């Protein structure tokens, strides 16, 4: 579904990614873990087109998308739930969800998608006429996820979806993501919460200093000595 080959990205003079390779297959949950500043968010932003790569190739469903702008890549049925949610604070919850279905393909399935989002997050239905800026942190995350689902994506990328949430809410969010995977979404997840993330994932990649240093099945990674010491505190 998603393939990244030899990806190199810089911010000005500073190189952040030094040739990253990975794939996400259909129906998988794949997690990218790594310390702050390793290049995880950069990877997701480059895949969706918010950042431009220096080198390397990005394939979405087998199609090379390097030269497409963000709004064209989204049409390939890939969605990003960005770090910090990035909801539209002065629009209502309903309007935020409407914008998720901005593209014509998504508009055709507006009603059923809205229904399933409200079923997944009844709280959003209760607050549909409220300005999104008045929501709590957990509700904002629900809205960001709901908004992404409104676009009827096949691949959903999550950037630190549990950031700043209380532990019980973080568990809820990761359970929701696992649930989404079970209903047919392919998922690429970036998480600080390594243990919980690996528990729900099929495979994982470890990025450090802009380089891929480890990859494997999720349970394999959990038993890895380096992962244990650096990320699981064991």
């Amino acid at each position, binding site marked *: 579904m998603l393939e990244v080959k030899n990806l190199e990205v810089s911010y000005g003079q500073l190189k952040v990614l030094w040739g990253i390779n990975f794939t996400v297959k259909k129906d998988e949950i794949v997690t990218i873990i790594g310390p702050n500043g390793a290049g995880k968010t950069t990877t997701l932003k480059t895949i*969706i*087109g*918010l950042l431009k790569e220096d080198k390397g190739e990005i394939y979405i469903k087998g199609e090379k998308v390097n030269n497409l*702008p*963000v*709004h064209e890549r*989204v*049409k390939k049925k890939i*969605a*990003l739930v*960005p770090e910090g949610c*990035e*909801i*539209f*604070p*002065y*629009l209502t919850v309903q*309007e935020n969800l*409407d*914008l*998720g279905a*901005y*593209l014509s393909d*998504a*508009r055709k399935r507006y009603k059923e998608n809205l229904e399933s989002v409200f079923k997944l997050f009844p709280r959003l239905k209760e607050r549909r006429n409220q300005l999104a800026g008045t929501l709590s942190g957990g509700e904002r995350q629900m809205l960001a996820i709901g*908004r992404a689902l409104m*676009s009827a994506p096949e691949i959903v990328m999550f950037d630190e979806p549990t950031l700043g949430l209380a532990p019980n809410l973080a568990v809820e969010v990761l359970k929701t993501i696992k649930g989404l995977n079970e209903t047919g979404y392919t998922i690429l997840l970036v998480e600080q919460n390594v243990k919980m993330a690996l528990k729900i994932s099929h495979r994982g990649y470890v990025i450090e200093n802009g380089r891929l240093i480890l990859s494997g099945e999720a349970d394999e990674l959990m038993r890895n000595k380096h992962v244990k010491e650096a990320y699981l505190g064991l």
Partner: protein
Amino acid sequence: MNLFIQAVITGVLVGGIYALVTLGLTLIFGVMDIGNAAQAAFAILAAYIVYWLSSLYHVDPFIGMILATGLLFVMGFYLYKYIVYKTSGLMAFALLYFLSIFLESTMVFVWGNTYRGIKVPYLSGSLQIYGYYIPLDRFIGFLMVSAVLAIIAYVLKYTYFGKAIRATMQNPYAAALMGINVDRIYQVTFGIGIALSGIAGVILGTIYSFYPSLQGVWIGLMFAIVVFGGMGSLSGTLIGSIIIGIISSLVATYVSSVWAPLVAYVILVLTLWIKPSGIKGRKI
């Protein structure tokens, strides 16, 4: 008392036109954070185009207004697409300021710096309601302003396109993630903003006489209204315009029309002093 009510009526009518001429400025400022210093020059340009069409080719001023508005939209669209998008902040302001002077000079060159007016024979005279006079041209102008404002409000509130504009205004990155072509939104908004000032320019041209350097007077007033109403707030612009219209009209009636143009600037200074965020603290 009669005099007072008459002054308020006049103030509301004039304020409505202030609102329309400023609305495009507010929209462009709100969505792109660009202070379009050429906004008033485009308004005067539209008035000249209609004056020229009607006096030379006998085109009805309202047909002329539609043509001029369309032309200004196209100019705004391509102006943004090929020039303005490369700049931002002060550089954009300087560039557009240069454009305003360039347009002014061009208009002086083509039409001369003399007073002109768009004649609409069927709009002369006044309505008389309960003994108060309402000049027909201003009344029709006000109705058109209200209709345009209602359409803009409806589009922004209820259509996908309007929601996309508001989303882009609040968070262009997230808007792109929704599949919105943010560059296109900027181009179209710039075109609409310029076109709106064109409509206002033509309506003004049917009521008052105009000349190329009038744009310098207008742009000052418009920026004062934008600050008073709250930077980028459309409803703030409407309320601010009407308030400034009424106060100016009262000053003209009770003090002297010589002092009326000062009202907007006194309000500007008071706004910056007491509540710098304006009537409405936030965008749209």
